[in-house]
Structures are given as structure tokens and as C-alpha cells.
């Protein structure tokens, strides 16, 4: 069993969903982002998604776009993402990478998987790679027991849901809405429906991302999903150094994943 499914199943046994935190590596600096990932783990993230910055983040809203552009300006490299994976793993959470496909192709699918394993990572989320276009990646990942995490969305047809569920390991990343990353006022009704349809297509574990930013939203999503993915809200807190400094020490003491236990106390 993969580290990801094991972690999700432990949480399930505890009656909660896993909390998955996303941070781009290198924002505002490499060292601060590594420290922030450590803080996420200490504050109760079960899984941390490490994002190597990419020049054309098609599926990201302004907050993560800005973070990626800043990181690239500072000369952040894909190797820094593997360093971050190592930091997360050492801190005791499960580490995955969320990467645009060209960074993986450029390094080589096999080498990417090798480097991930060497750093102690468990899987890769590929937002711009569909399973039918990814036979090389899937083969490389299977050989090394790296989980392949593909996305399902409100627009995904039944046939493609099945393709996605079959090709995914660890969990399926269900997007709560049609759109790019970023905070939203509320999590729409579409989210529960995508989760239901993804499960019907055969996925055993489904986590929900996009637009989840508050404790209340996280608690809502935890009612029907196996995991709650928070990205832009953390990135924003980090960019605004004040918020981060205020919330970091407090998060350290907060009960593990309190937000996904239906307790809206996660909010900084």
C-alpha cells in the first residue's frame, strides 16, 4: 500500500479527512518556502504538495502565478522541489509533487520518478497531463511505486472519469469547480457531485481542491471527500509575511488537521 493511501486510511479510521497543503517551492525564497512546508506539517497537514514553479501556469490564478513568477525570477530550479520533498518527508508528512508536465518531460519521466523516490516522495499530481496522453509517465511511475494522481472536474465525462480513476493511484484530485486555482467565497455544489461521480467511476480515494481556503469550507468538503486540498490561501498567507508570522507559531500548537474535523479553527 502506498504512503498516500495509508495516510488517508488512517485518517478515515480517525473519522476525518486528510488535510493536503500546497506550496510552490521558492516563494518568497527557497529557504522560507522550506520552512513554511515544515510549519504546514507541524500544523497538521497530512500531505504536502510541493509545486516546482513553471513559466506558464495555465491552471493557476493570480496568487500562485505571482508566486511562480517570483520564484523563477530568483532562479529556483526543479532540484529545489526535490529538496522540499525531502524536508516534508523528514518532517513526518507524505510528500507529493504537483508539476506541469513539461518540467517532467524535460527531466525525463524516469529520472523524475527516480529523483522523487530518492527524496522520499510518494506521488505526483499532473494537472496538465491526461492519463491517455501519459503512458510513459505511468509506466515509469508504476515501476518505482510512485503514485500517479490525475484530475477529475465537473466537466469530465463518465468515460473519462473511468479513465482517470483507473490510471490514478493514491487518490484522484477532484476539482471543486471549473476554473483556475484561487480563493472563492464558497465551495459550490458541483464539488460533492464530482466526488460522487469520481467514486462511481471506481476511485476509492478522492480529495477535493480548488477554491478551498477557509476552515468552514474545509469542514464542508470533509463531509464527503477523503481529503481537502488548500493552496492559494496558504500561498497568500506566506506572501503576506505578517500573516504568516502571526499564524505560524499558533498553527504549531493547533490540533492536527483541526479544520477538516469540521472545526472551523484552522483559519489564521
Amino acid at each position, binding site marked *: 500500500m502506498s504512503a498516500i493511501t495509508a495516510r488517508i486510511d488512517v485518517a478515515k479510521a480517525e473519522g476525518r479527512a486528510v488535510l493536503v497543503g500546497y506550496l510552490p517551492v521558492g516563494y518568497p525564497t527557497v529557504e522560507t518556502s522550506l520552512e513554511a512546508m515544515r510549519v504546514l506539517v507541524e500544523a497538521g497537514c497530512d500531505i504536502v504538495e510541493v509545486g516546482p514553479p513553471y513559466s*506558464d501556469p*495555465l*491552471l493557476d490564478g493570480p496568487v500562485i502565478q505571482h508566486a511562480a513568477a517570483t520564484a523563477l525570477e530568483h532562479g529556483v530550479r526543479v532540484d529545489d522541489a526535490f529538496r522540499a520533498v525531502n524536508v516534508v518527508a523528514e518532517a513526518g508528512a507524505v510528500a507529493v509533487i504537483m508539476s506541469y508536465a*513539461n518540467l517532467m518531460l*524535460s527531466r525525463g519521466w524516469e529520472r523524475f520518478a527516480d529523483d522523487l523516490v530518492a527524496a522520499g516522495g510518494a506521488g505526483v499530481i499532473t494537472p496538465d497531463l491526461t492519463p491517455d496522453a501519459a503512458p510513459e509517465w505511468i509506466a515509469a511511475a508504476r515501476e518505482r511505486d510512485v503514485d500517479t494522481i490525475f484530475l477529475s472536474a465537473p466537466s469530465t465525462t463518465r468515460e473519462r472519469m473511468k479513465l482517470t480513476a483507473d490510471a490514478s493511484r493514491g487518490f484522484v484530485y477532484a476539482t471543486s469547480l471549473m476554473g483556475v486555482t484561487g480563493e472563492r467565497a464558497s465551495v459550490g455544489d458541483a464539488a460533492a457531485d464530482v466526488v460522487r461521480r469520481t467514486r462511481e467511476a471506481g476511485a476509492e480515494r478522492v480529495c477535493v481542491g480548488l477554491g478551498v481556503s477557509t476552515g468552514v469550507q474545509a469542514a464542508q468538503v470533509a463531509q464527503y471527500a477523503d481529503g481537502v486540498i488548500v493552496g492559494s490561501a496558504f500561498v497568500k498567507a506566506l506572501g503576506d509575511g505578517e500573516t504568516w508570522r502571526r499564524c505560524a507559531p499558533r498553527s504549531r500548537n493547533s490540533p492536527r488537521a483541526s479544520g477538516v474535523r469540521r472545526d472551523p479553527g484552522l483559519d489564521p
Partner: protein
Amino acid sequence: MKSLVRLARDYTGRPSIITEVPRFARHAGGARVFLKREDLNHSGSHKINNVLGQALLTKRIGKKRVIAETGAGQHGVATATAAALMDLDCVIYMGEEDTERQALNVARMRLLGAEVIPVATGTRTLRDAINEAFRDWVANVDTTNYVFGTAAGPHPFPAMVRDFQRVISVESREQMLALGGLPDAVLACVGGGSNAIGSFDAYLDDADVRLIGCEAAGDGVETGRHAATLTGGRPGILHGSMSYILQDEEGQTQPSHSISAGLDYPGVGPEHTWLASIGRAEYWPVTDAEAMEAFRLLTRTEGILPAIESSHALAGAIRLGREPGSRGDAAGHAVWPRR
């Protein structure tokens, strides 16, 4: 299909004519040079061929809003034109730098009722406009169709755009036969590659006809400031397809540079990569300076003002005509001057 053929005739003004340009050709080693005049299409470029097809599809699937990216502004103008004709809401994304260097086309789009959104991220050019259009599309796909402007991007755009642009070579092949025979070569400029693939397609089985795509070499490929993707790039994934792209060793897209906004793109349609890899088509880098010289020549010798994009193909024609051993007879040139 019937509606498209009717619109092509009664709205676009197809078939577009072929103009022989003998005074210009004197500078091309004496080869005969023919221009396929896509500039005479309604709205001023080949872009309308593709847009009318995609706008009809938009109506057919019941969507009310179209979005598009544009570089030089020609695709934006064509999309705004079709949107006005077919009563669709229209939003055009355009890199901020391009809105400045192509301000006239911004005004045309606005007159046609489109909203033009300048994109200030990244390199502020075509590539960033495409990123932003995709972000809009993924959020509004229920109501909106993305009218992609070139033969690149995710499936099915490369094939669909080729099929809508194929009319260029279907016509020019017949016209050249009527003028006495197939050309030795067909040249076209390559940004994403829609006019080029449309110009090549009907000639693919004519093994004796050379197909030459002219890429924007900016200041020169060796300077690193260029947009010659097939000459200076390597395989990668950008905007949903795998092709050649300009990128660093990590896979980060590199900024492209060209005097011509319509060719200033660090990717290229996947079918061109294929044609290059099997040796069926050649891709030549043409610098800003060479394109400007060809622009000046055509203007002064023939009274035809070409687009700066198309001027890259004209420069290629000059180079081809001067090639040692060039047979120096009919060279059919698919070239799209703009008014």
C-alpha cells in the same frame, strides 16, 4: 459545411486571387514568384478562414460567447468580425506589448464590438494571451467557445485549424496548374503555423514541390533573441500539445523575440514538427532585418504592402530564388500581405 462554403464565397470573397510579382522577382534570382492573396480576404488575413468555421461550430453547439487570443491582432479582428456577424459575445486576450505595437487592430476589434483585454503577465505577448484565454475558457466552458487562432494548442485544434485553412492550398494548387504547372516550392511564414499548414496541405503528396516554412529569427538564432522554434527549440509540451518549443534545460518556456507580433511565439504546431522530422518540409530562420528588407522591396516594386509576418516568407522566396542551382522557374509562394 455548406454554410461555410457559402460564407467563404459571399462574405470572405474566396477564392482569393494569385498575383504574379515580376518586379519583385528580379530580386529573387529571376525565379517567378506568385502571391496567394489572403490579404484580400474580408478582414484582411487568412485568419477569417478558420474563424468562420469555428464560429459556425459555436452556433451549432449552442454557445453564446467566443474568446480568442491574438498576437498581431489579425486573429482578434477576424474573431470579432465573425462574432458581430453571428451575434456572439466576444472577448479577445492580447499581450500588453502587442496592444501597443498593433494599436490599430485593437481599435478595429473594439469597433466590431469585442472587449479587448490586455494581458500584463509574463512576456506580455501572444503566449501569455493564450495562457489567459485558457484560464477564461476553463472557468466559462459552459457558455463559451475558445476560437483558437493557429494550428497548435490541444487536440482537436491543430487538425481542425488545418482543415479550415486547407482551402488556401486547395485553391492555389488548382490556380497554379491553370497557370501552367505546379510550383517548385511553396513558402509560408510560421508562427503557430496555421497559414503554413493550410498552404502546404494539398501539396503533401506532390513530392517535387518543396514546402518551406519561414520562422522568425528575430535578431538571429545565434543571439538567442528569436522565435525560430524548429531551428532553435527542442521537444516539449506547451499549451496542450507536444511539439518543439523554445525552453531552457529545465523545461521553462523561454521568451521569444520577433519584430512581428504574429510570429512572436515560442511554440509551433505539432504537424510542422512532424513534417520537419520526416523531411517533407524545411524550416528556415528569417531575421527581422531580412523580413523588413523584403517588406520594403515588395511595397516599392509591386505596390503591395505585406504583413510583417508574411514578409518572412517573401524573404525566404528571395533566398530560395538566389540559391545556386535554383531552376529559376515557377515558384508558387503562399504569402499573405496585409492591407
